[in-house]
């Protein structure tokens, strides 16, 4: 079942590495975009709120694959060219950013109004009440859903195979379509599945660590 195991393991490890760094890099972009969106969403300036809302609606209702295909195959037509991995990171990051923004916003909204009112009534300034009362609570509320966004991003990152980035799924595909069929089908399927499970396990362990570190000491 596992003929040429070393070759297969080598290809899958390379794919895992690509999947992991694409995931982490695009998640970083998504976090930045998410924070910007939240700031725009809560800002008193109405146009900024509209823009944030439009961005969120756009990326929530257009499939990720369509976003990636438009970026990589469509944009060169109007003179915007970049390497495929750049579009992979940008596409995944911009798409996930909309969801990160929504998650963070619901985190801030989940804090009872009384908390902020109490902070203001003891005389804390805007930045003090935000930094010492609201954000510490909001961050704890959003870590678990942000964690599941990260795990979902691992799976979504497989879509960048459509623009030619050799991540885990693309590597597995190459193994199965090997012209000399050196690899057993089930062996590759099991290998690639175990790889994804491993990534998800490690990442959810890290998320749980983050949750623990952020938890209140009661």
């Amino acid at each position, binding site marked *: 079942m596992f003929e040429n195991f070393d070759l297969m393991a080598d290809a899958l490890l390379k794919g895992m590495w690509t999947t992991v760094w694409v995931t982490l890099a695009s998640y970083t972009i998504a976090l930045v975009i998410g924070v910007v969106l939240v700031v725009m969403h809560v800002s008193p300036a109405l146009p900024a*709120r509209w823009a944030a809302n439009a961005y969120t609606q756009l990326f929530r209702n257009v*499939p990720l*694959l*369509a976003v990636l295909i438009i970026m990589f195959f*469509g944009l060169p037509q109007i*003179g915007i060219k970049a390497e495929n991995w750049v579009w992979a990171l940008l596409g995944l990051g911009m798409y996930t950013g909309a969801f990160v923004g929504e998650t963070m916003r619901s985190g801030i909204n989940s804090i009872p109004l009384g908390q902020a009112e109490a902070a203001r009534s003891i005389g804390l300034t805007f930045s003090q009440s935000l930094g010492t009362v609201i954000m510490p609570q909001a961050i704890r509320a959003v870590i678990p859903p942000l964690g599941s966004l990260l795990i979902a991003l691992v*799976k*979504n990152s497989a879509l960048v195979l*459509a623009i030619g980035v050799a991540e885990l799924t693309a590597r597995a595909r190459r193994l199965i379509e090997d012209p000399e069929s050196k690899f057993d089908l089930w062996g590759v399927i099991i290998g690639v599945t175990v790889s994804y499970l491993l990534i998800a396990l490690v990442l959810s362990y890290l998320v749980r660590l983050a949750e623990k570190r952020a938890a209140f000491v009661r």
Partner: protein
Amino acid sequence: MSRPNESTVLFDALGPKGRRNSNIASVVSAVVLLGLLALAGVQLAAEGFFEQSRWANPLDILVVQTTWVPAILDTLLAFALGSVLALLLGVIIGFGRISQFAPTRWLSAGYVQFFRAVPLVLLIWITFTIDGRFGFTTDVLGWSNDARRLTFLVLGLGIYNGAILAEILRAGVAALPPGQAMAGYAIGLRHGQVQRLVVLPQVVRNMLPAVLAQLVILLKDTSLGYVITYPELLHSASIVGRDYGNSFLQALVIAAFIYFVLAYVLSKLVVVAERRLRKKTAAPLARVQQVEAAAVTD
């Protein structure tokens, strides 16, 4: 959404000075945003993005009839069949996970864990590839190529989303106050009867918004048919784009717009359903919010 002149988590109601500052901020941000839009528009116009022929060709009546309309129908067909399969599997697996028979629980849990961890595109593509590798091929059924591709797309969508719907249902059961099931047992119902008559109706009612939200995601995921060249919207758009060489971006933008409209309408239906359901009675939930948050992410 926070509104001005109203106390929110972050701001007190604004006074005259605050209102003036916020008005200034509004104007400034409007100018900046319009400026960015104008800049993008000028850049696009300079590259000929708005040239009439580039839009007229892919939107020619003949193309609309032979490509766009069938593409939308094929997308909706994959969505409908995928949803039915996902809902069926979701209910079976979801209740398998709370079965009294331990092996059923283990199998269902294994199914959910496995299929939630694997990317959907891998699943669709593997089912498409293994066809004909194990002595059985769908060729003997005499199906057309498109029917074969539809089958594997629907299988992938259904199997994957079935796992997620099962999780939603299970969370719904867990969030239902235990008194509901206990009351059922107290009046002498068997386990199966309690599930069927007491638990399931309430769970379905409570979880309908989360389930519908997942179906919106399933609709977007039909675009993965692109990978196995099923003639859904995205793949059809790329074919139209290839036919009219310099309208490639335009064809993709049209497809994205159609996806947007379909998904937006469906998600508005979710909001309507939510509102209507709130009027009906079911036992109040303990942990709905987390459940919905979990559902949006996958």
